[in-house]
């Protein structure tokens, strides 16, 4: 028989004992719904975590330092490659070269320095660090009061909550509850800070005369490496106060005040590396203590790290932790899938039951069909089509049901999170492939369930079937 005929016959037969077939189909729907619910929870959780991780910048960032730092993170590296003295300087040229590597989104220098800030005529000493505009998406700025920098060069600053408290003289004792960020931000936003810093300026054309007896003659190439250090002031407008600590992973070297990256670069603040590299770098070329490299996705961290290492630098990333997490999610996913399918397997037993009952009821009909020329294959196909139709119908209804359950739980979770003053999450995700997969899975499970009843119907002896009243 042709497929459209089969489908039509199957659907009309299903309509004949509507209640029983509906109940069986609902059984499949519930099975599919549970499968979809479980898997989409798994997918949603994974998406949520990987988004969080990507936003935190921990897993897609490679920290590049020069071997000349003598602070190697990886001992193995010390035994390979050039000695620290011979290796490259992490300067602007190297930064650009790293940025051109495949799969690298951006490579920005870490500019950080300890300096004095004046607020309300009182001096405060703290660490300042520069942020690229891409840091705006970082999780650490969730719950920040005020705004992110209006541009990369704006004379603006974002304060960490604890430094804001210090400016206001509200430092709380350890263990005491932290002050509310909104309260801290209110008097500070829009206020002015004065930053004092040491600028590295190109040297005057004549270096100070040296007495010949005290120093060996200096070679000409070093002439340009001289510069002067000038004390400067820069006014900064406070635009934001962050609730979280954006540099928590840096431990004691973390900064409490943040500046836009381009602004910080233009200030030419004296960096510790400047002293070390005075004999190597040209005066107009900044030298960085470290460069942060953002990679397109965590999967490419390893290859980027390898490429940077080949350039002669030291790298650091938190890749292994993320790999372990992926493993956890794969196992979780498999478990959710197995539990989700259980309900569908139970439902498929319902199909077997319904079809075996249908054969008993429709014995005579099967006999008639065989008498007027239906082959074993035709009869088998009719029962298969009924099983398949129940599977597809159940699958479609089940996907809708699963999606609805997901939405309800999603909304419920978010209401709860809101009451606990947490940001809302997207716990549930039903990608299109899951929809297709769930319906196909229901279809094939139903066909498998129809295998035995269809075979039994096909083998029915027409003479006996017709005699049966």
């Amino acid at each position: 028989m042709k497929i459209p005929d089969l489908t039509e016959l199957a659907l009309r037969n299903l309509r004949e004992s509507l209640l029983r077939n509906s109940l069986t189909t609902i059984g499949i729907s519930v099975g599919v719904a549970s499968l979809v619910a479980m898997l989409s929870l798994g997918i949603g959780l994974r998406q949520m975590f990987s988004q969080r991780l990507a936003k935190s910048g921990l897993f897609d960032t490679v920290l590049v330092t020069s071997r000349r730092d003598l602070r190697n993170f990886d001992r193995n590296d010390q035994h390979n490659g050039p000695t620290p003295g011979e290796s490259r300087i992490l300067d602007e040229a190297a930064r650009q070269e790293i940025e051109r590597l495949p799969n690298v989104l951006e490579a920005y220098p870490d500019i950080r320095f300890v300096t004095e800030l004046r607020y309300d005529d009182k001096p405060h000493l703290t660490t300042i660090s520069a942020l690229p505009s891409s840091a705006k998406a970082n999780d650490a700025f969730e719950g920040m009061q005020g705004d992110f920098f209006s541009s990369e060069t704006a004379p603006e600053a974002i304060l960490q909550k604890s430094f804001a408290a210090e400016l206001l003289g509200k430092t709380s004792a350890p263990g005491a509850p932290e002050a509310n960020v909104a309260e801290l931000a209110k008097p500070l936003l829009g206020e002015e800070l004065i930053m004092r810093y040491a600028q590295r300026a190109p040297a005057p054309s004549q270096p100070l005369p040296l007495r010949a007896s005290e120093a060996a003659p200096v070679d000409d190439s070093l002439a340009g490496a001289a510069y002067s250090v000038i004390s400067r002031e820069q006014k900064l407008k406070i635009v934001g106060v962050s609730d979280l600590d954006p540099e928590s992973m840096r431990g004691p070297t973390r900064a409490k005040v943040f500046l836009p990256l381009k602004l910080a670069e233009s200030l030419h603040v004296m960096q510790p590396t400047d002293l070390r590299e005075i004999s190597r770098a040209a005066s107009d070329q900044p030298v960085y203590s470290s460069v942060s490299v953002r990679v397109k996705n965590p999967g490419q961290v390893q290859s980027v790290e390898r490429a940077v290492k080949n350039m002669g630098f030291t790298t650091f990333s938190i890749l292994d932790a993320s790999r372990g997490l992926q493993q956890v999610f794969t196992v979780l996913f498999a478990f959710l899938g197995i539990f989700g399918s259980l309900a569908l397997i139970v439902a498929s037993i319902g199909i077997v039951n319904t079809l075996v009952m249908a054969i008993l009821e429709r014995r005579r009909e099967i006999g008639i069909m065989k008498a007027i020329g239906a082959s074993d294959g035709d009869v088998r196909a009719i029962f298969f089509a009924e099983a398949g139709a129940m599977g597809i119908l159940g699958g479609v209804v089940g996907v809708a049901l699963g999606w609805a359950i997901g939405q309800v739980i999603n909304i419920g979770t978010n209401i709860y999170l809101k009451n606990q003053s947490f940001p809302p999450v997207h716990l549930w995700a039903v990608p299109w492939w899951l929809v297709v997969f769930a319906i196909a899975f229901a279809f094939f499970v139903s066909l498998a369930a129809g295998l035995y009843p269809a075979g039994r119907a096909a083998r029915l002896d027409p003479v006996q079937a017709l005699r049966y009243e």
Partner: protein
Amino acid sequence: MGETLIRAVDGVSVEIRAGEFVALLGSSGSGKSSVLNLIAGLDRPTSGSVVVQDRDLAKLSREELAKYRLHVVGMVFQSFNLIASMTLAENVELPLRFAEVDRSQRANLAREALERVGLRARMHHRPSELSGGEQQRAALARALINRPQLLLADEPTGNLDSHTGTEIMDMVRQFNRELGMTVVMVTHERALAERYAQRMIFLADGKLIDDRAITASVADLREHGGRQ
């Protein structure tokens, strides 16, 4: 040897010519229905052979037997055997579905067949809404739809009153004469057989008792002549 073999039909040897109208007569349990089922390809002989149009049904596969039933044989039963959940039109076109005839053609053929048995107006009714005679006419239309050469009827008037029974039998005879269909009819009513068949085969206890041709009766001649 645990199972006892019941010999429903034993040593019956009959030859039926194309276009013949044969009645199989006998009391219940005589084996006449078994013979019909063998000819219909619904049953297979444990020994011996059933040869229809040069093919031995005993040697056909299940698949080939189904094809044979579909294209060569049309069947009518005592209890009509229409499928209750389908309308007359759907019942009549069911064999066409198994024969994989196109949908558009199917509707026309079903309409024509129902027209032939005078049920065109009732084509969208279900069997339960019709009288016994109408149901049997629909069953005849279904038996004819694939233009079979062989019409097998198992007590076709058994559930009908004598008037509608006559109506059905007239139709069967019409198909026999006009379409040249070979008819084999099982009945226990000798009068019916004498009136319509050309030949009577008597069975008892699965054995052939008698096989005789009927010379056209006066009544039949008169009726036949009157119609032409």
